[in-house]
């Protein structure tokens, strides 16, 4: 049975069959004239107080004009209903009282107007009702009515909007997305108060039925890209979408790539700015990480704060991040390759210092670096997973005891520990690149230990060639460097002032090119 019937008993029985879980509750009550009503909802995700006040109470005072077997006439029922409306002062006094029983649609309309709920919609199939209940909404069924009423009394336990841990700013907005997609949508709407901001929610996940909201600015975002993304989202056949990273992985055109091809952010201000540039955003229910497309590699080197400080400062910090990233990835490999294959690269004084510290070391340089790097990764992983209270002890044990004793025991050398520690710190200057950077660091270490500086150079060349031939949704990952787009270089490693950035990035293929118009540019 797919559609709702007029019999409440039948409907309830079907629902109970469809949703046998214990957390699905049914609340029965009657209208003033004794017509049975039923609210089905999932326990714990519904605001029961609101449901009682705005749904059950008004209905319990309503005389529904339904011809039941208890012998009441339609005239009497309608009269009561009209007089009740008169008392509320909302009724149209000139309206004549219908003598005949109301049509089903009119009854549904009457119930809708009686419920004082802003989020209300009607359904006719069990499937829709079932999905809505599971989504946290409530389904109201009335005896004698073959329409169900979805009441948006969802009340999910959500955490407060707070500063995201991965993208902290000193100057600038501190709000961060949370796990609830509705809150995230409201945070976005707060920043883009334009009718051009469009949001479209799709359901992804056969079991999780997760809300995935596509956001874009109409007339600014690339329509083709939007269609492509939407089609790809609609094609997804997956059981559970636990996080936006699932969607990112699905959308990614290169499934086995070390580099991510979808941008991520936890900050609504950044998300809004990216949408207004012409990107398309994706919010996923249950994830505080929003996705943006198309993505270019240098995006990760930028921070929202770059736009709140002077362009000079922004340029300096971007270059600093870039250098830090290179140091993080290449320094351990470079150290190993110089020791093994090309000592000339270091100044003599430094060579002698290193030579004295690695004397009598039982491990080869590459193995030593491998061990220290492994220690760093283990410490990092443990410090993330372990309880807060043990964290302090771990720092002491990990950093002081382990590091210090390993050096004094002659197991590891001081330069190796310094290099790995420095590399570890540098990597966190670009938080979105940590996973990729970490993998690349291992790979570079491997090639440096095998064939020295030539291995490093060859691997750099390989990565560059890989990146220049990598496109994600038609946008090259290395844009605007390759293919070269001169105007887009204004907001890359070097940040121009706001007035020079009056055009939207070319690589985004936006329908509207101008984003800033001053008197000067108008002339």
């Amino acid at each position: 049975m797919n559609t709702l019937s007029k019999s409440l008993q039948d409907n309830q029985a079907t629902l109970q069959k469809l949703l046998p879980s214990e957390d699905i509750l049914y609340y029965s009550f009657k209208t003033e004239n004794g017509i049975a009503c039923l609210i089905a909802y999932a326990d714990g995700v519904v605001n029961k107080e609101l449901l009682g006040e705005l749904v059950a109470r008004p209905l319990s005072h309503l005389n529904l004009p339904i011809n039941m077997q208890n012998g009441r006439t339609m005239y009497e029922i309608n009269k009561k209903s009209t007089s009740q409306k008169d008392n509320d002062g909302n009724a149209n006094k000139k309206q004549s009282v219908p003598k005949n029983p109301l049509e089903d649609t009119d009854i549904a309309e009457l119930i809708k107007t009686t419920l004082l709920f802003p989020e209300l919609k009607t359904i006719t199939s069990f499937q829709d009702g079932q999905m809505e209940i599971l989504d946290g909404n409530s389904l109201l069924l009335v005896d004698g009515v073959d329409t169900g009423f979805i009441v948006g009394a969802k009340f999910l336990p959500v955490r407060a909007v707070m500063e995201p841990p991965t993208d902290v700013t000193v100057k600038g907005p501190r709000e961060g997305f949370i796990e609830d997609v509705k809150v995230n949508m409201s945070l976005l709407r707060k920043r883009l108060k334009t009718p051009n901001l469009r949001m479209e929610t799709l359901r992804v996940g056969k079991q999780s039925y997760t809300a995935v909201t596509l956001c874009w600015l109409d007339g600014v975002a690339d329509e083709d890209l939007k269609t492509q993304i939407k089609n790809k989202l609609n094609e997804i056949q997956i059981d559970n979408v636990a996080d936006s990273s699932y969607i990112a992985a699905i959308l990614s055109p290169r499934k086995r790539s070390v580099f991510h091809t979808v941008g991520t952010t936890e900050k609504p201000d950044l998300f809004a700015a990216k949408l207004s540039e012409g990107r398309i955003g994706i919010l996923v229910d249950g994830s505080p990480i929003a996705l943006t497309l198309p993505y270019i590699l240098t995006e990760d080197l930028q921070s929202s704060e770059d736009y709140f400080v002077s362009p000079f400062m922004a340029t300096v910090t971007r270059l600093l991040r870039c250098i830090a990233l290179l140091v993080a990835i290449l320094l351990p490999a470079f150290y190993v390759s110089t020791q093994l294959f090309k000592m000339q690269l270091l100044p003599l004084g430094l060579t002698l210092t290193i030579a004295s510290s690695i004397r009598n070391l039982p491990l080869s340089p590459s193995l030593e670096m491998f061990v220290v790097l492994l220690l760093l990764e283990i410490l990092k992983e443990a410090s993330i997973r372990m309880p807060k209270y043990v964290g302090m002890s771990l720092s002491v044990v990990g950093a002081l005891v382990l590091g210090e004793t390993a050096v004094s025991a002659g197991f590891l050398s001081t330069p190796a520990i310094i290099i790995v520690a420095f590399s570890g710190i540098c990597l966190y200057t670009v938080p979105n690149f940590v996973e990729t950077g970490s993998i690349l660091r291992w790979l570079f270490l491997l090639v440096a230990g095998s064939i020295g500086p030539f291995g490093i150079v060859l691997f750099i060349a390989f990565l560059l060639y890989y990146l220049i031939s990598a496109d994600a949704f038609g946008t090259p990952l290395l844009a605007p460097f390759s293919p070269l787009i001169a105007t887009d270089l204004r907001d890359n490693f070097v940040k121009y002032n706001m007035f020079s950035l009056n055009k939207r990035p070319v690589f985004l293929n936006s329908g509207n090119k101008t984003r800033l118009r001053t008197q000067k540019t108008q002339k």
Partner: protein
Amino acid sequence: MQISHFLPTKPVPKPLLKNREINARQIAFAAAFLLPAGKLLEVPSILAKHAGGDLLLPAVLHFLIQILVILGVLYAASKSKSPLLERLKSALGKMIYPIYALYALYFFLAAVLPLLDAEKFVYATYFDTAPTLFSFGVFFLFSAFVCTKGIKAVGRCADLCLFLFLIPFLALSFMAITETDFSHLLPFFGTKLSKSLTAFSRTTPHFSDAVLLLPLIANLRYEENDGVKIVSGYGCGALLTLFFLAVFYALFGSLARREHYAFTKIGQYFPALSVVGRIDLLFVYFLSVVLLFYTCLPLQYVTYSICAICKTERKTLTAALLNFALLIFVLFTNRHYNAIYSLISGKLAPVFWLFANLLPLFTLCLPKKTKNGQKLQNEGTMYALNLEKEDNKVKKSSRKGV
């Protein structure tokens, strides 16, 4: 990103940034920043060996000839909006396959010298101690990967070379220039003309640039001013090379003939290096990324040619086989480096003349249209035609002021 939100008023037609195989700017960049990389290793010492202080003379002569060839090919390309390759296919029919085969052989031959240069350069620059032969063997993995990528990747690579080439080139030149004595280049024409001509002849394979640009130009959908861009790009590359040669000779003088792998040597006398270590090597390594791209270029062309002959899209297999063959070649011929070098740059120089300078000029004889008029068979060309239509639409609508 930009925080200010200027929201749209009227939608305008989309720009056509995407998905062209290659454009004139990229070819110009390839000519300016990719091709010179091959001339910074052995060429300066060969030129210095034969021409002495007049080493610029044969180089200039080479560049002039190459510019003439490029101009000829560009003129042929400019005669029609359909790419040269399509017209060639249409005009020659099945006869295109022997030409592909000949050029595959030629590019294979052309790949040998850069490969030998790169191998020796790697052993000399990247290792303090004698490395194993297999140390360079890894290059062929990279090369095989590069060979699987299409013309579009070559174009983008050229874009990237702007930064990868210019930054280390300028840094190394700056390091060298403080120690140079340009009087070494004087007097002009101080060397016998015959010696300069020997230098010219010996460096023919290294300067056969037009043929390396030929596959790129052949895929170009020619537009107005493309020729100017490409020739300017090549001119820029030529000037950078000449500048490098001048600095190199000004630095080493009569010793220049013995200074192999020129760009690894020119920065080493910079005074600050004694304090900070050989940071010039960092720039050398930086520049050698471009050198690796350059070394792969002829191999890419061989792969394309073989795939075209076999009518296959399976570049991976072709690239793997080709690079495996080259690995074996390098391993077995390693001890005969000098003999192979002198064979290719000496006796086989006419082959380079024929394929690099003469045969490309036959494109001038191509008809303006394909056999079926403007109707082209290839999908890529159809795509290009569609783009052209879109271009026209954009132009029309922008004229209307939309």
